[in-house]
């Protein structure tokens, strides 16, 4: 058999052909990077993937654009169905906000480079909301921390935590290092998060999930958490918010929830019969403190400039809930309401009639991107409120603005009142 050893890494014939440049310079570059990374993670071989989701599409500056164009101009084309994460600009709507042309032009060029490689222009961090989903045990290569944790945990697919620049190398070679979360032995739960002590009214509170994710992410240090004992059953939007929060405050690529996620039908399965290495038992006071910690520079009753929803991108069911909450009401003239979502979900929400109530309320939508990935906010917007732990976590550093965290209902009440208004009922 045509194969070779590079360190302890075994490459087969087709891998070597790509590495030699038989399929062009772009694919050679991708395979060279992939092989170096396989050595870094001490993989013995590469495995086939069936799909990919690309976070490298995010424009960060000239280097990410040069990387994309080197691949595309070198003839690299994806070998598996590949979706695209958010980009650096709302392709058709950026002029409605404060995005400078000097940013929009190269960001659009980067979008074109990834489309030229054969990726589907989905432009969303939540591809699982509208695209075909990988099945349990399916080997894929996903980027975007919030999507990775969803794919592994909620869908039971297998992806390592692929950083930007590597996800596309997997997609154009169809290969990934056989390491990390691709391998069953690395998917076993380590930390038990016992939620049985939480009061029922907190268990019924949707904002519990981002807060809990934030709290867990800070404590597990990359080990796989297993949640159990909550007196409520989380839905998909709850798990989306939970995972995104864990993957912001911590390096979490997979969690299990006993009786909820596919690899944890019971505690034994989640821990493979072993004892948890660590047990955590968050109480009401700890989670209340975590909720307050998500805010930065804003207190209750402070004035607001923007309420922003949709990180990860707002789902159709979230639009349905929001439409009910804002129906017949009107935002305060001093506060804008922005929802970030994907093109496909926006179309579905319009079709379902949800956007009528939201637009009458004074809400605005941005697609393809989000407030963290495109410089869209005018300087006059200084005070934000959100129900997303991910937005709350990154806003102080990336946007240098104050932020308050609250539930979706709190966010709507605050948009009407013009100031931070939070219902503490579930938290006291």
């Amino acid at each position, binding site marked *: 058999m045509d194969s070779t050893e590079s360190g302890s890494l075994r490459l087969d014939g087709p891998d070597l052909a790509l590495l030699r440049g038989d399929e062009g310079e772009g694919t050679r*570059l991708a395979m*060279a*990077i992939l092989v*170096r*990374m396989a050595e*870094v*993670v001490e993989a013995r071989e590469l495995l086939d993937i069936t799909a990919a989701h690309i*976070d*490298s599409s*995010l424009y*960060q*500056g*000239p*280097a*990410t654009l*040069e*990387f994309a164009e*080197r691949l595309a101009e070198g003839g690299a084309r994806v070998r598996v169905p590949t979706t695209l994460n958010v980009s650096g600009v709302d392709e058709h709507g950026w002029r409605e906000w404060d995005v400078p042309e000097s940013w929009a032009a190269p960001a659009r060029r980067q979008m074109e480079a990834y489309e030229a490689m054969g990726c589907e222009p989905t432009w969303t961090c939540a591809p699982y909301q509208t695209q075909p989903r990988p099945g349990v045990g399916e080997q894929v290569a996903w*980027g*975007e*921390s919030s999507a*990775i944790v969803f794919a592994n945990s909620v869908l039971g697919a297998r992806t390592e*935590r*692929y*950083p*930007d*620049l*590597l*996800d596309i190398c997997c997609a154009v070679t169809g290969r990934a290092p056989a390491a990390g979360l691709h391998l069953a032995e690395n998917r076993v739960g380590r930390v038990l998060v016992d939620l049985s002590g939480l009061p029922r009214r907190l268990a019924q509170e949707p904002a519990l999930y981002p807060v809990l994710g934030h709290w867990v*992410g800070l404590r597990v240090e*990359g080990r796989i958490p297993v949640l159990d004992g909550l007196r409520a059953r989380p839905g998909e939007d709850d798990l989306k918010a939970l995972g995104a929060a864990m*993957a*912001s*405050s*911590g*390096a979490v690529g997979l969690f299990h929830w006993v009786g909820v996620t596919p690899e944890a039908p019971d505690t034994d399965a989640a821990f493979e019969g072993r004892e948890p290495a660590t047990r955590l038992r968050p109480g009401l006071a700890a989670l209340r403190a975590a909720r307050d910690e998500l805010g*930065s520079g804003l207190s209750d009753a402070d004035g607001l400039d923007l309420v922003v929803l949709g990180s990860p991108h707002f789902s159709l069911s979230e639009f349905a809930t929001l439409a009910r909450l804002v129906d017949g009401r009107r935002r305060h003239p001093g506060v804008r309401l922005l929802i970030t979502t994907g093109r496909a979900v926006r179309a579905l929400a319009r079709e379902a009639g949800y956007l009528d109530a939201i637009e009458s309320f004074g809400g605005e939508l941005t697609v393809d991107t989000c407030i*963290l990935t495109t410089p869209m906010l005018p300087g006059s917007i200084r005070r934000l409120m959100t129900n997303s732990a991910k937005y709350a*976590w*990154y806003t*102080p*550093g*990336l946007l*240098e603005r104050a932020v308050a965290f609250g539930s979706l209902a709190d966010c709507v009440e605050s948009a009407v009142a013009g100031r931070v208004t939070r219902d503490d009922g579930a938290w006291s």
Partner: protein
Amino acid sequence: MFRNDLRAVSDRSGAAGSGRLTGRALVEGAAEGAVLYSAEPLSFWGGYDAATGEIIDRRHPLAGRNGADRILAIPATRGSSTTTAVLLEAIRRGTAPAALVTRGPDTFLALAAIVAAQLYGEAPPVIALDPEGFDALRRIPRARVDAAGAVTPLGAVDQRR
């Protein structure tokens, strides 16, 4: 006291020179500079300004410090998968750390350096130390990194840290 600890670390790691910390070079290279150390993981996205090298994660102990041309010692990256892209931009602009040292291997930092080497022919070394070796960096003001993956402390040890 500390020198004894350090020697113990070195001995365990099998290093030859006094105080030399032997690690694994994920990306090889040589560098020398002031050590910027934190026991707290850092996401470069939302945490490191590629335009200036400033650490901008307001919740991080190193917030406001500048990582450019330093030996940046953090236990690991966390969170966002865009950390790699931010570090790549910083390398291109010349605002990246001179070397990156972590507590165990960090694939995100290694990837950025590997891509930079492919695109620009240059990259900062990325070194994984064992936990004891990494923790010893807390008190070291200045260090040299060599192609073998060793980190050699330079200058007087800071007893206050």
